[in-house]
């Protein structure tokens, strides 16, 4: 598996898109640091970009990579290699290279700005953790979509829909439900509904760490109220991990059953 991971990773490091993605974050965080002149504020601004953009790029990139390497995958399938190793290796290659782009793109400007001497290093760390989690979650979802759809156009369509649903529509529908049922006690519902969306979960995780109650919103406030800051963070991290494991498990299951 490590060899496949190595090849996928190096294949991606040669791809133009990895650099575009990396340079985008590099530029964005440099500009934000320059304009804000403050690490904390920049982290909050970046949070809003990261939780929308990382899932988008993760799904699109994942689907694109899978379809692009289909031919090579078939070549590999005839070799004496376990199926599981092939797909796990490719998935980890994509997820790691995406994570690395974010890590370096955000990390370099922050490090140069003096992150290590400041007291917000843990806030920054949690931003990176969230970005890495989202990269892993959404590339796993992308691989699931691509494996289940031989038709590329359909695959891309579903990928965009999944992103749109979790990043935009979910919150809207959720808000409408809250307004509509405002007469009822909605705490539990809110709590559970948040767990089902990794993007919401990531947002809450960072805001809990930053301890900005003004930005927490209804869901975050309930989360904090119910779990407290520490337990809340642990629960959301745990659920994010489940969000990685479940799609990954399904991906390997589908890959095992699939005919090539």
């Amino acid at each position, binding site marked *: 598996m490590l*060899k*496949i991971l190595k*090849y996928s990773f190096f*294949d991606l490091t*040669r791809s133009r898109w990895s650099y575009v993605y990396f340079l985008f974050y590099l530029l964005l965080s440099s500009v934000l640091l320059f304009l804000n002149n403050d690490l904390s504020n920049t982290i909050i601004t970046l949070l809003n970009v990261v939780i929308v953009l990382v899932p988008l790029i993760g799904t699109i990139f994942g689907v694109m990579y899978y379809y*692009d*390497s289909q*031919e*090579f995958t*078939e*070549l*590999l*399938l*005839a*070799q*004496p*290699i*376990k*199926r599981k190793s092939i797909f796990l290796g490719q998935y980890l290659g994509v997820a790691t290279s995406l994570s690395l782009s974010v890590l370096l793109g955000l990390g370099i400007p922050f490090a140069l700005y003096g992150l290590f001497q400041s007291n917000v290093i843990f806030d920054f760390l949690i931003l990176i953790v969230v970005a890495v989690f989202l990269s892993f979650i959404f590339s796993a979802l992308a691989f699931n979509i691509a494996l289940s759809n031989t038709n590329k156009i359909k695959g891309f369509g579903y990928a965009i829909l999944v992103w749109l649903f979790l990043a935009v529509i979910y919150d809207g529908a959720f808000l409408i439900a809250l307004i509509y049922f405002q007469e009822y006690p909605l705490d539990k519902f809110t709590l559970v509904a948040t767990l089902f969306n990794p993007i919401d979960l990531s947002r809450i995780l960072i805001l809990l760490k930053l301890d900005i109650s003004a930005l927490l919103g209804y869901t975050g406030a309930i989360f904090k109220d119910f779990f407290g800051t520490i337990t809340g963070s642990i629960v959301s991290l745990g659920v994010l991990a489940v969000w990685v494991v479940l799609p990954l498990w399904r991906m390997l299951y589908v890959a095992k*059953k699939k*005919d*090539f």
Partner: protein
Amino acid sequence: MVEFKDIHKNFGKNDVLTGINLTIQDGKTTAILGPNGSGKTTLIKILLGMCHSNKGDILIGDSTTKNNWSYRKNIDYLPQIANFPGNIKVKEIIAMIKDLRHQKTRDEELITYFELKPYLDTKLSHLSGGYKQKVNLVLSLMFDSPFVILDEPTSGLDPLSLIKLKDLLKKEQDNGKTILITSHIMSFVEEISDHISFILDGKVYFDGSIDELKSTTQETDFEYAIANLLKNDHA
């Protein structure tokens, strides 16, 4: 010895294989023939574990191919359509597969034999169909495995390369390798194979030597004998 036992496979409503029983003898060259879409490639893919049969079992020696991958160490497989990732070079893909399999190789020898030396630094997407097939041949034959599966090995090859391929395969036969081929070039099949298995409507319709085929169909010409098999069924 490879033994196919009652292999069934359908893709949705399309029943491709409906009970294939077939034995491939060690050290012999068996040709799997059949009309387009008769499931030759599917049968090979099931043997390699790339497709899963709905029913039935394949035995290689004593062990089954199900939930097993290590038996592929002893198989060289030439896929039908040489689709390679386009953005890597010929020598890179050879190095990659070598690294993945970690077995003894004879790639240098084959590269010289198929005159691929000048193209080692060319990207695969820039190669012509015939050269892609040559790369395909090098990739699949370089491990010198005792069991060789060739799915349409002749496609895209010019007459000279075809002769070279035949010579190479004859050498492999002399070395006692088991070879399984599919091809639509009947002269090639006739020249190279000891045994014919004809698949029609998802079953093995004829299984025997070329001479047996000729005497069954009462044709003296191999190509006509095959055509006869097809015609009589649909008459």
